[in-house]
């Protein structure tokens, strides 16, 4: 335990030091041996933050590197790549796009020269075909043309149907394709060596979860994930590492209330336009960006649940 803490402390010091010398490198924390995570800002995309608002990172095996969520722009992707190269010269064989949202995928273009397999859920190509052009436009609008330059959709080359087992060199990684939850194309990763679950946006900590899939489905996936024994979990937004399953207690509470209170609103004939004022009010002080996303979450849950 102390050794792990020491590694983290040294890594943080190195990361901090490296950032001072090379502002173009993404600072990361080694949350477990060989697993490096950059903590995204808890904000909406803006010119000031360049859409660096999600947790991104990479896993290093004996033979190869896997990048997980290459970032919100080609610029961030380049900064992440610099962080990889600061630690290892091993080939970047895989880039995993955990789901379709722009803050996780637009860094992929920065890894083109590495020729990696780009991994996505089997439903990701369709989601990209539908939303990709729209996301490219909104990225330019949100962070500016210059900052968004080069941020184009990169198609996955390797699709996950239910499960995909890979090995980075004495480092087996299992990637799971989930049913509709945060989106309908969510992937999670499990690193056997350290007992780490990389959950990306299946897990939100501190920042309000965003419902863009199915609230019923998300509760189901979360219940199943909470049964998995793991030393830690990496959320898509929040601290780089949290205990498991305790780190998902807040999210479980929020999603449960979202579902239960939306059902109650539907039963009392509260309309869809009014429902956001009646659902999850007690969660207000507990989540960053609550007002930005709770109303939208309620609308999505309402539409899903009124047919139950």
């Amino acid at each position: 335990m102390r050794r792990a803490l020491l590694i983290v402390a040294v890594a943080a010091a190195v990361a901090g030091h490296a950032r001072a010398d090379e502002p173009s490198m993404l600072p990361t924390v080694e949350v477990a041996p060989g697993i490096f995570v950059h903590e995204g800002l808890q904000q909406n995309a803006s010119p000031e933050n360049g859409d660096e608002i999600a947790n991104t990172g990479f896993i290093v095996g004996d033979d190869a590197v896997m990048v997980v969520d290459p970032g919100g722009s080609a610029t961030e992707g380049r900064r992440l790549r610099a962080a990889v190269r600061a630690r290892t010269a091993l080939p970047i064989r895989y880039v995993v796009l955990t789901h379709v949202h722009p803050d996780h995928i637009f860094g992929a273009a920065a890894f083109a020269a590495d020729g990696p397999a780009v991994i996505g859920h089997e439903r990701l190509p369709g989601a990209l075909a539908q939303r990709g052009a729209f996301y490219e436009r909104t990225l330019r609008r949100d962070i500016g043309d210059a900052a968004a330059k080069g941020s184009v959709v990169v198609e996955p080359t390797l699709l996950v149907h239910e499960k995909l087992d890979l090995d980075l060199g004495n480092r087996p990684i299992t990637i799971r394709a989930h049913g509709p939850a945060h989106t309908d194309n969510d992937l999670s990763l499990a690193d056997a060596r350290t007992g780490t679950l990389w959950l990306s946006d299946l897990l939100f900590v501190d920042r309000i979860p965003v419902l863009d899939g199915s609230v019923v489905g998300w509760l189901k996936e979360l219940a199943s994930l909470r049964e998995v024994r793991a030393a830690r979990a990496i959320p898509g937004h929040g601290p780089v590492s949290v205990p498991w399953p305790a780190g998902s207690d807040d999210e479980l509470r929020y999603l449960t209330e979202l579902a239960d209170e939306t059902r109650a609103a539907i039963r009392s004939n509260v309309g869809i336009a009014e429902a956001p004022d009646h659902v999850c009010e007690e969660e207000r002080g507990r989540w960053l960006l609550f007002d930005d996303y709770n109303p939208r979450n309620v609308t999505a849950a309402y539409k899903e649940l009124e047919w139950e």
Partner: protein
Amino acid sequence: MKPTIVALSVALLLGAALPVRAEVSEEARAQRWGDLQHAIFGDRAVEDGGSAIRLTAPDRAMDAAIVPVAIALDDALAKNVKAIYLVIDDNPSPLAAVFHPGEAADMREISTRVRVDDYTYLHAVAETNDGKLLQTAHFIKAAGGCSAPAGKDQALAMQRLGKMKLVIEGKRPADEPAAIAAKLLISHPNSSGLQMDQMTRNYIPADFVQSVRITYDGKPLMTIDGDIAISEDPTFTFAFVPGAGSGELKAEIDDSHQRHFEQSWPVRPQAQM
């Protein structure tokens, strides 16, 4: 029967559309509305409805594919209205719906949910029995509603296709002894033709509810001409004045694939069906 609304929408679609971006001038928007008025109402004058007609919708859509829109009329207009037109100016197919009330309808408020494709004005126009056209507008910021992905489970949606639910929401308003508010839910993908199937990556053909005929005790209560701008799983809220005893409310749906669905419910206030 060739639904007027479809022919109209096609005509509008073929006409010049504004570039799809948020930074459009007020002048260009006014021009657009002028063109649409002409396409829908010909040379007839469309007046400002003042406080007689109100359009309620968010200023910024939380989900551009499910934007709740309510149209409220004052007492006088509610008793004298022949039709209400709902227009989403910058949508690919701007005329979203036309509501035709029957005698039993209480037209003080109707609502539905629509897809909004870009920052746009919404317009509601009430046509009175004596031929006047009264308009109101609301500006909304939204994007991508018409091409938003269809529901997560296409297979489930097709299984449930055409099923309806009627929810009696109680008496409205409290001081009116007779009016009952109801919400009709129709399970239907209402595909816009602009959405893509996530697995095959082909465009899902337009497949939408064209006509909703609601009758009460066999008499027309409301007929709604719909288009692709109505959200997936169309939902309409309306009010009506039932007769002396309880009667049967019936809904008949026709969609663009020539499907026909019917369902009826005995009306009992305060009950959910």
